[in-house]
């Protein structure tokens, strides 16, 4: 086994070995190629689908807003993907219990109660299915893992069905069908767009920012931007269907950059009449049915409050309806709501304010200024300053703007 002895006869053997080794290795090219092709397809297909903004006739922002207002889509069905990233700390179960607590899911409530269920939309990514056939028939379903939560409005009846727990919630709409619609939290791009357009005044710049393809349809992009500085809102983009004037996608990006705070858009939409069977609902055998009255008479009152709370960031006016003793300072996007909680220093309106006090403290940042000292709670969109003497300043403005407002208020 001397190293030199083998020198003579290696050449032939090694070449053979190398060749067969190469042939062995060559076969593995197949699985590697398959993987490469798959990776390329996954990477390229969305990029290809994205490219090629449609050519549409020019339109002014004013015309586009009128188009949205005139839009009278009554029949549609589709799938909506909604992602919200408010930058709230991840509280897991606590967060949802807070949310539902605040939204009026009292004791004896049903898991099929629409108000309780749809507040889940306030965080994370969700897939919704919508179907509508005129003002009398609507259906909204929240797709969950192997389960679904549906709200079905058909004529006088409003049904909530939670397939996971097999529970049914039943309510009736005696007033105009509109009342029911307003009770639901905003979920569709249209709802968000309407809220955003309400806030349009002379502090806002509205422009048409090219075109895009949304859910396979040609759409105009409407760009809404606050003119003033100090707002946490960077820009709002609404993609409006060129044919029907229906908002198809709503994106709200914060001024601080990063991912969108709210991104709600159709991934698939059809303006054909949905099958009538979609809106027929009879509670399945053995399902637990909760009637609206049993669930608590204060349902309406509570849901109104919840509504105001959710809409608060959207416009100062809405907030005014829900809370007494509130003032608004500033205008447009920079408006700050001020209210006095009565010297407690912690929000009494929130569920379980007392025991949460210490916990909430740990979430905020201490600030001091001419007004004294206080705590700032920040999210990616809404900031709130709570002074030690019990005043609360809330707005979609930066921390500095809040402190300035508090200083001015002194």
């Amino acid at each position, binding site marked *: 086994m001397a190293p030199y002895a083998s020198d003579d006869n290696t050449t032939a053997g090694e070449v053979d070995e190398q060749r067969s080794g190469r042939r062995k290795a060559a076969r593995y090219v197949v699985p590697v190629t398959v993987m490469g092709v798959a990776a390329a397809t996954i990477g390229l297909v969305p990029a290809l689908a994205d490219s090629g903004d449609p050519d549409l006739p020019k339109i002014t922002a004013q015309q586009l807003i009128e188009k949205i207002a005139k839009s009278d889509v009554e029949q549609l069905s589709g799938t909506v993907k909604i992602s919200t990233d408010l930058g709230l700390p991840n509280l897991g179960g606590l967060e949802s219990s807070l949310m539902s607590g605040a939204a009026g899911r009292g004791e004896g409530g049903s898991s099929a109660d629409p108000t309780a269920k749809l507040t889940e939309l306030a965080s994370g990514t969700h897939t919704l299915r919508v179907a509508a056939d005129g003002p009398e028939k609507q259906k909204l*379903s929240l797709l969950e893992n192997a389960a679904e939560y549906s709200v079905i409005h058909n004529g006088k009846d409003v049904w909530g069905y939670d397939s996971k727990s097999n529970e049914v919630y039943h309510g009736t709409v005696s007033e105009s069908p509109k009342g029911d619609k307003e009770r639901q939290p905003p979920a569709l791009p249209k709802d968000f767009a309407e809220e955003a357009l309400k806030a349009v005044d002379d502090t806002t710049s509205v422009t048409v920012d090219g075109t895009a393809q949304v859910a396979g349809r040609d759409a105009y992009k409407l760009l809404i931007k606050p003119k003033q500085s100090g707002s946490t809102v960077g820009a709002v983009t609404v993609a409006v269907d060129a044919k029907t004037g229906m908002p198809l996608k709503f994106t709200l990006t914060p001024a601080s950059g990063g991912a969108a705070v709210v991104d709600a858009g159709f991934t698939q939409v059809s303006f054909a009449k949905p099958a009538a069977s979609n809106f027929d609902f009879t509670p399945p055998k053995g399902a637990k049915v909760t009637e609206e009255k049993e669930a608590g008479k204060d349902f309406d009152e509570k849901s109104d409050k919840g509504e105001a709370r959710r809409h608060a960031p959207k416009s100062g006016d809405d907030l005014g309806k829900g809370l007494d003793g509130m003032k608004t300072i500033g205008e447009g996007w920079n408006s700050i709501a001020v209210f006095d909680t009565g010297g407690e220093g912690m929000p009494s309106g929130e569920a379980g304010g007392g025991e949460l006090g210490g916990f909430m403290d740990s979430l905020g940042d201490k600030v001091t200024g001419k007004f004294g000292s206080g705590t700032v709670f920040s999210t990616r969109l809404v900031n709130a300053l709570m002074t030690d003497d019990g005043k609360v300043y809330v707005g979609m403005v930066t921390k500095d703007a809040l402190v300035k407002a508090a200083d001015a208020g002194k």
Partner: protein
Amino acid sequence: MSRAEVAGTVRPVSPLWTLGLLRNELATTFRRWRTLALLAVLAGVPVLVGIAIKIETSDGSSPGGGGGPAFISQITNNGLFLVFTALAATLPFFLPMAVGVVAGDAIAGEANAGTLRYLLVAPAGRTRLLLTKYATVVLFCLAATLVVALSALTVGALLFPLGDLTTISGTRISFAEGLGRALLIALAVAASLIGVAALGLFVSTLTNSGIAAMATTVGLLITVQILDQIPQLHALQPYFFSHYWLSFADLMREPVYWDELAKNLGLQALYAAVFGSAAWARFMAKDITA
């Protein structure tokens, strides 16, 4: 252990020969006590679930209480839902484990028993043998799923009422359509196992020990399912073979939500292509010593 008497009959290989090989493989696989025991365990799961729910709800309470596998709260109203619950309960572990055992055994088991070289003496060719083995495993996936579904249907019909059913979207469909959807769901579940089958076959070509191949496949299965639960890995999770398994429940929506089902099928096809070709590359170059 396939008998290869047919081998000498035709010199230019006819397609019938492949079918004969497949028939032989199927017969040996399904005649094994091990396979029959696996199928018996699978058939037992719906029986257990059905009896447990019957006992739990005998006092009129509702089953599951919001927890447990999908659809469990509906079983007492309609026995057909036991099919969906049983498939949801067996899909994460029992079904892929059975497939992992059969797939892991496919090549390594023959090598272990010393029969692989005799199989290759017949003019079947390695590629053809590998394809036959894979076809056998895929047919086992289908058989195992159907065993669960049929056992669940029988138990459901015996213990609970049948009739029109409510989809998870809240609409009603007739019992016949429900049966049709149950069949579609069984097919979707069987197709979900194609990826594990290809992975098991690849592992099986790596070793000469059948036990090692089975253990590795089942171990990989458990590891992937654990990794699928870790939120920090969410960027990788869409590529785990088990990620879209529960999408079969989308067939119970009205209208059916196809997005995730299509993703699941695409992912399984990708696994079959990658690990199938890797198994081929390995098997073609393998030294057959036993």
